[in-house]
């Protein structure tokens, strides 16, 4: 399905009036947002307090805001903060048939117009949908729902009991919200960049960049063609048909920021790149050695970063600006712990021993494993660190098993796994289960010793389904990953990094296409992420399904536990659901 087709389908899937709601009020936003009136400069402390009210429902005093919803339900403002419906960028939302109008200052303090994209209203100018609010009328509508034009707001909108001083703080914040375009946006261009670290092969870099550059070339050649006298009619037609006419005149650019040297120098390199080439957002990007400094750069500068290809994302429930494809190795550790708990009736009563190679992979896998056990109130795991080059001998394993009296060993290692499994399969008091990581094993996955396969459980973070690769301009049919076995092991996505890189970038072009349209000219970074959070699930050849949602920052949530069958032509067999609860 094309993007337009997709959007049209979405509209059709909602009720007629929901469609009208989407069509009418949102369409005017782009023109309003382009205003550049000088704004007051309130103190940063006041803005922080306002932000706390807007995002967390907490008054400057530290108390929760008192709110009433559906006419008479008293609810704590912490559960009904402004941000939960109007979203972080303040441009509102449409969800479940409920339309939430914008609350950013530029929208509130001017008349809410009804405007139809691409249609000149010379014949029948419409009256304003509502007049502009001022501080007094806005305070009244927040408190009581009474509008300045004599009606009452839908009672889905809570009423907030705010004192005058608190109300002033909130209104000041609303005036500052999505008030100016960020760096990287001009009347003619939206600037993006991709970050690559020098440890990535040229083939992988090119595979990651090619779909993005192709998408941008197509988009820009459209804009070029609209500029000619012959293209004027095409442009008008596109503006009438497209949700966002702002895109018909704006080109996209993609800079490549190559990071060199030690990680502790990356932040400085990034700041310098950003100074020279201010960008709106970061698309994709790829690194083999960790993403933390780039993640921090995004947080510090409030720059969205969409699906960077890293197996080492920063794990955070609160950071906002980076949307990762998954939690990487951490997610595999998490899956192993969840599987253990679910198969042991909720408690890991015997000691679990984790043998961890001193590596970035080992650290991420063990962090996911340990944290999950902690969250589920399980006894702590015994961790044995392996130094780089240190061998796992049979004696070493027997000693651990005897000392810890364990039935479960987690082997977060790549170099010595096969020998260790061979040793374990031949000792008398061998553990009931050993867990290893498919991604960390790579090619060795196919070579697990035959005798060890029955007790070896493998974390496998990829789909078994042969999903079609989505094209740059359409296709969003979700593939259900229902096959129980994977026969063709050469399909292991970890074996083909350039292909994975290309596929992820194809997905990015899908997301960006929808996001830029749905933003409707409101090119604010928080809005970019807000809109992304509302995008329906997307197919992924690597993960089957990428899902989004307000504030969700890891698109693929699952990881199978699988086993390898015996024999020379083994297959992988699923032992768990994609997401283990």
């Amino acid at each position, binding site marked *: 399905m094309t993007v337009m087709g997709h959007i049209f389908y*979405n509209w059709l*899937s*909602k009720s*007629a*009036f929901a469609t*009208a*709601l989407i*069509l*009418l009020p949102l369409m005017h936003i782009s023109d309003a947002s382009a205003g550049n009136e000088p704004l007051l400069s309130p103190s940063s402390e006041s803005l922080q307090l306002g932000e706390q009210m807007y995002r967390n429902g907490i008054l400057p005093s530290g108390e929760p805001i008192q709110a009433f*919803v*559906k*006419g*008479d*339900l*008293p*609810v*704590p403002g*912490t*559960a*009904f903060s402004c941000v*939960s*419906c109007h*979203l972080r960028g303040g441009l509102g*939302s449409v*969800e*479940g*048939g*409920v339309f*939430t109008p914008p609350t950013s200052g530029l929208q509130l303090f001017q008349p809410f117009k*009804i405007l*139809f994209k691409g*249609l000149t209203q010379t*014949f*029948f100018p*419409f009256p304003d949908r509502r007049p502009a609010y001022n501080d007094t009328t806005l305070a009244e509508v927040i408190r009581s729902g009474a509008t300045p034009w004599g*009606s009452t707001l*839908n*009672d*889905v909108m809570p009423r907030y009991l705010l004192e005058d001083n608190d109300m002033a703080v909130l209104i000041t914040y609303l005036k500052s919200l999505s008030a100016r375009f960020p760096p990287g946006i001009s009347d003619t261009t939206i600037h993006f960049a991709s970050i690559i670290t020098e440890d990535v092969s040229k083939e992988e870099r090119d595979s990651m960049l090619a779909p993005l550059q192709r998408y941008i070339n197509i988009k820009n050649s459209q804009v070029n063609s609209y500029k000619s006298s012959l293209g004027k009619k095409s442009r008008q037609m596109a503006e009438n048909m497209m949700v966002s006419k702002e895109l018909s005149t704006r080109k996209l650019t993609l800079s490549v920021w190559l990071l060199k040297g030690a990680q502790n120098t990356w932040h400085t390199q990034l700041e310098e790149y950003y100074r020279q080439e201010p960008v709106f957002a970061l698309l994709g990007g790829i690194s083999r050695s960790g993403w933390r400094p780039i993640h921090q750069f995004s947080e510090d500068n409030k720059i969205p970063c969409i699906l960077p290809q890293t197996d080492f994302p920063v794990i955070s429930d609160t950071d906002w600006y980076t949307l990762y494809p998954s939690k990487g190795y951490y997610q595999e550790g998490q899956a192993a712990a969840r599987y253990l*708990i679910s198969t042991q009736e*909720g408690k890991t009563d015997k000691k679990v021993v984790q043998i961890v190679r001193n590596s970035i992979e080992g650290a991420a896998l063990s962090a996911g494993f340990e944290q999950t056990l902690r969250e*589920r109130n399980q006894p702590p795991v015994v961790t044995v660190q392996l130094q780089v080059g240190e061998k796992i001998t049979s004696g070493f394993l027997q000693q651990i098993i005897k000392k810890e009296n364990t039935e479960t060993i987690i082997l977060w290692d790549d170099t010595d796994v096969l020998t260790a499994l061979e040793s374990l399969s031949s000792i008398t008091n061998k553990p009931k289960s050993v867990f290893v990581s498919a991604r960390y094993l790579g090619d060795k996955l196919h070579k697990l010793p035959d005798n060890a396969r029955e007790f070896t459980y493998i974390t496998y973070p990829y789909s078994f389904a042969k999903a079609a690769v989505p094209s740059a301009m359409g296709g969003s049919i*979700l593939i259900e990953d229902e096959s129980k076995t994977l026969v063709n092991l050469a399909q292991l996505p970890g074996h083909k990094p350039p292909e994975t890189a290309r596929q992820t970038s194809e997905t990015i072009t899908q997301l960006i296409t929808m996001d830029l349209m749905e933003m409707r000219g409101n090119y604010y970074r928080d809005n970019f992420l807000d809109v992304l*959070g*509302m*995008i*329906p*699930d997307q197919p992924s050849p690597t993960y089957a*399904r990428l*899902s989004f*949602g*307000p*504030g*969700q920052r890891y698109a693929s*949530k*699952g990881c199978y536990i699988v086993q390898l069958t015996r024999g020379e032509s083994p297959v992988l067999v699923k032992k768990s*659901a*994609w*997401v283990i*609860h």
Partner: protein
Amino acid sequence: MRGSIPSNLLLFFSIILGIFHCDLSHAGTQYKRTIENYSMPDVVLVNQNGAKVRFKELMQSNKPIIVDFIFGTCTTICPVLSAGFVNLQNKIGSDSKKVHLVSISIDPENDTPMVMNEYLKRYKAKPGWDFLTGSRKDIDTVMKAFNAYIPNKMSHYPLTLMRPSGDNKWIRIFGLMSSLEFISEYQKMANK
């Protein structure tokens, strides 16, 4: 023909505007109530404490049951549905367990027991309100059993399903109720 375009468009826009105005004046005070027969599937779900729950058994409880479909990071309608649950629990008073409130996740991959537990805490849920997740397949089965299947969480709609004690008929409420309407529906069900 050119002259007719504006008037046609005007008519079109008038219709749309009519719908728009209609929504603002009445939305939220109307809901659709029907009585339905549903057959409960035998699937195992997981609650906010990580405990496995046999869904069919749960639905055979002698207590009145109220079911809704929500997700942890939802904006707009889930918070309103949940506010209704909070209010009902407050209204019932100390014995909050005498009615079983069951929220079923429609974002089962993201809604882990931890996410669901935090959600319930945010709403100050009392005992008697459970939030269930599971595999996507099992959640799909449950949605289908209630004639509430949606392929994607972002296209959901407000739905409350109420089953009186000792009955196998379900009251299906489509739309958002005010708290008074919700309490009134609950009392009708409880007094049945």
